[in-house]
Each structure stands twice: as structure tokens, then as C-alpha cells.
């Protein structure tokens, strides 16, 4: 159609601010923020323990009760990320994985930190323990997991502390 096509690009950005409710799951975030506790839920009918918590059991359509879980668990699967989204690219490399807390039946997706971040250190079957930021705001980023044998080192750092 046109000869000597010349493109024209415009710089732009979309930003939307939110203040969204955690609804029935609010207790989970409040307990993390105020008490450094990890709460899951247990179905009143089938007894399945959900983590992340659901106040309703999706399997049997009955309510689920809050239940405090251990802060230790086992890595089900993990990876180390070396290239990622614009929001996280400054954090690479970082370890992430699915952790089944002792007593839970579903696995939680969380950051796995290690002083020696190599695949063998955070592989399936390794035991991990939760470490909390001293400054918490009631978000998932308030805590992370570390290999159990590194736990004491991590909670001795000034910005972190152990759970209850």
C-alpha cells in the first residue's frame, strides 16, 4: 500500500491500584502478620486439610474449619529461576517450590531460600521450615522456607525471625 514504510511506536503504561479483600481467607494473612502462625483449613465432612486454606471444601461442598499447621514440611517439587518477569528479574536466581506442610494434604507454593542455592539442596523430599520477615504486612511475601539445617542461621539474621 505505502512505499518506504516507517513505523511509529508510542510509550505507554497501564497501572491499576487495588485494595482487594481476602474474604473468608483473611484469617490466614492476619495470623501470618500478627502471630507468625500458619493456618490451614480442615473439611468438617471429609477431613481434608487445605493449604492454601479454603473456607469451603471444594470436594464435598461442606464448610471447613481453621486449623493451625506445623511450620515444617517437605518439598514436593522445586525449581531455580534464572530468567523471569520484569517484576522479579532483579531477584534472580531464586528458588521456588511446592511444599506440603506436615499435616496438610495440599502443597503451598512458596519461595525456598538457601545459602547454597543449587538444585540438589532444594530437591523433592528435602525438609524445610518457615522463616518470617520481622516487618510483615499480611501477604505471602511475609515468609519463605529454608532447608531445616539452615534454619538457625536464617533466623539469626537481623531482618528475619522464627515462627511461633
Amino acid at each position, binding site marked *: 500500500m505505502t512505499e518506504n514504510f516507517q513505523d511509529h511506536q508510542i510509550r505507554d503504561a497501564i497501572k491499576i491500584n487495588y485494595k482487594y479483600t481476602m474474604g473468608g481467607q483473611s484469617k490466614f494473612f492476619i495470623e501470618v502478620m500478627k502471630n507468625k502462625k500458619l493456618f490451614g483449613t480442615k473439611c468438617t465432612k471429609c477431613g481434608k486439610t487445605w493449604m492454601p486454606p479454603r473456607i469451603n471444601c471444594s470436594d464435598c461442598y461442606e464448610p471447613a474449619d481453621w486449623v493451625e499447621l506445623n511450620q515444617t514440611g517437605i518439598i514436593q*517439587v522445586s525449581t531455580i529461576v*534464572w530468567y523471569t*518477569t*520484569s517484576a522479579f528479574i532483579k531477584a534472580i536466581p531464586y528458588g521456588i517450590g511446592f511444599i506440603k506442610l506436615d499435616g496438610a494434604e*495440599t502443597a503451598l507454593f512458596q519461595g525456598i531460600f538457601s545459602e547454597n542455592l543449587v538444585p540438589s539442596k532444594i530437591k*523433592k523430599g528435602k525438609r524445610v521450615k518457615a522463616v518470617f520477615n520481622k516487618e510483615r504486612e499480611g501477604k505471602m511475601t511475609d515468609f519463605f522456607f529454608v532447608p531445616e539445617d539452615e534454619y538457625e542461621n536464617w533466623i539469626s539474621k537481623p531482618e528475619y525471625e522464627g515462627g511461633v
Partner: protein
Amino acid sequence: MSRKVAIIGVGITPFRARYLDKTYFELAYDATKLALEDANNNGAEITHHNLESTVYVINSYIGMNNKPGTRIASGGATGGYTVRMAYSEVASGLSDLCLCLGVEKCNDCYDEQTGVTTPEVLNAIAYSADMTYEYPMGMMAASSYVSMVNAHYEEFGNPTEEQMAHVSVKNHGNAMLNPKAQSPMKITVEDVINSRIICYPFKMLDCCLYSEASAALILASEEKVRELKIEKPIWITGVGAANTDCFIGNREDMGRLYSNIHAAKAAYKMAELDYNKIKSQIDLAELHDAFSGQEVISYEELGFVPFGEGGSWIEKTFEKSGEGPWLDGELPCCPSGGLIGCGHAVGATGIMSTGEAAFQLRGEAGKHQVSIEKGRAISHSIGGPGAAYAAIIVMANEEGLK
């Protein structure tokens, strides 16, 4: 009883990293025009005025005002789901000629801090993950797929890094024969293994690239196929879809996508094919190889080989004519080059792969044409948070209906 539905026209634009000379709407127009031209080469005499509905809600720029249009949003499975819904429009009698359209212009995203597009594209797509529990931890497409692949490896010792690399060699190689592909490359297993690490154990060459492109299909009822005197209708004989839990941590077996298994079984059953014999009942499969390891697992989940044998099926058949998923193999997988070879135009990919399979069944795929003996093919789409959504389309030419 639902009506028979055929693909009568296919339009696929080249897959490119960037179209600086096209907007989203201009790309949609190009694929629509190509699909109309293809339908007319296939015996029809139609224009956009004859199209009765769209599944994809672009209307104005493609001259489809005042007609129904429905938008589908199923992440990477959008293409397959769009074909499924367009099929439903025609099968149900809502429409006799339906335009099934997908467009992607993702590389309009731009990351100012690194001065490239990809991290911002990844971020925009990561917003489709759970925003409360998963996005804040750095979840993205590669890390969700790699979790399934790593869990599969833990359970079956398969796929290994070398086996995954074979998929990359195959699909980049197939793309050498496809002029519309973004990433044609003749590479070796060592090249893949030595490429930079993205997300352990995925290397750069294990991953597809994001593309800009558009793809369109024109679907017609049997009555319309006869009326328009279509020479080579490609009948949609099976559509199957399923969504598994978006939280990978809730899944009983993290190393399996049950959505793939359920979608495949539903699609094959509708097409009167057998999940346990499917490898010998179809001529080719256009799979959703967003990451090489997922293609290996799909061989198992879609019933081509038993669980645990996907990796050896590709590795042991390397350079053995008539065997494995290679272009000249027993069941060529991704002859077009797939997502790894063509690129991944997320909203258009599943429509491209369905259209590619239709071209193959018409014997008009070009240099990457495979041998068509049974007259049947499948296309496969997966996507969404945790790659939870799956859609599978089974197609047949006139011979394949027998």
C-alpha cells in the same frame, strides 16, 4: 443430534517476533482475508459478508458489525477452546458459516528496565496466575510447566535433559521447512543443553518464543459445505476439553496434567477413536510444545506411548526413518515446528495448529507435508494458570471419515 462441521478455509499469517507494520486489528484482518481466499480456492465463492458469526470479538475492522461475536480467554489453550466454541456454534445450528479467529500482539509489551520486551510479556501473562498466593512468589509460565516436568521426572525418571533436547532439535528442525515459522534452526542436542539456563532444568532452546501473529479458520455446516461445493472439507470429528486444578499444589499427581488425559479421551471418544490405539489411528499431531518437556509428557498423556516412555520414544528414534515423533516418523508430532519452531502467538497458536493439521489432511502443507494414510489428525492446546486448561480437536478428511 448435532450437525457435522467442517473447516473449509484456513488463514495463518507468518509468526514473527514483531510486526511494526501491523496493529492487532490489522493482523486479524490479514488472517481473515487469507482464510476467505483459502475457502475460495477450496471451491467456495464467499466474502466476509457471508460469514454469520465470529468466535473472537473483533468485528468492526474485519467488517463483521451487527453479527454475533464471542470472546474466549483460556490462556495458552485459547486457540483450542476457540475452535471448540466455533464448532459448537455451527454444530448447534446457531451459525452456518463461522469465523474462528485468534490474534496475538504480545510484544507491544516493553520492559523499560532491561530495554527488551520479554520480561514484560512474561509479567503480563503471569497476571493470569493466582494473584494472592502464587504471583507474589515469582510464578510464571516456565516455572509452572517446569514444576510438572520435574515432578514427572521424579516419578518416572523421564524426561531427561537429553530427551527434552531432542524435542527442541526436532521442532526447530521442522520449522526449517515452514516459511511461516519464527525460529527455524538446525541444532544439536548439545546446542540445547549448552544454551543458557532459564528455569532449572529448562534451557533457552527448550522454551518457545513469544510471537505476534494471527490465525483464522472458516467453519461450515455440512449443508453449507455441499451448497458451496467445497472440494476438500476437513471435518471436525471430535472436540474434547477439560480443566484441572489451577493450583498445582492441590493436584494428586503433580507430574501429570489430568486435563490433557480427560480432554484426549473425550475428543477421541467423540471421534470414535481408541485412546489405547490412537498412535496408529492418526497421521499427525500438532501438540502444545510451549516447553520441550511438556511435549514429551503429552506423548504419554494423549495416549501415544505408556507413561514413562515418552522420553525414550523420541530419543531412541532419532535419525531412524519411520519411527517416533519425527517428521518422517510413525506419528509426526509438530510437523509445522510447533510452538518451539513457529513461536507462540498465545491467542492464535491453537488455531494455527488446527489450521496446520487441516492443511496436512488436504495434502497442502508444503515442504513439511507428512504422509497421509489414515486421513486423521489432532491438534492440542494447553494453558492457563498452572497450565490447567486443555483442549483437543480431532479432524478427518473424506478418507478419514470411513
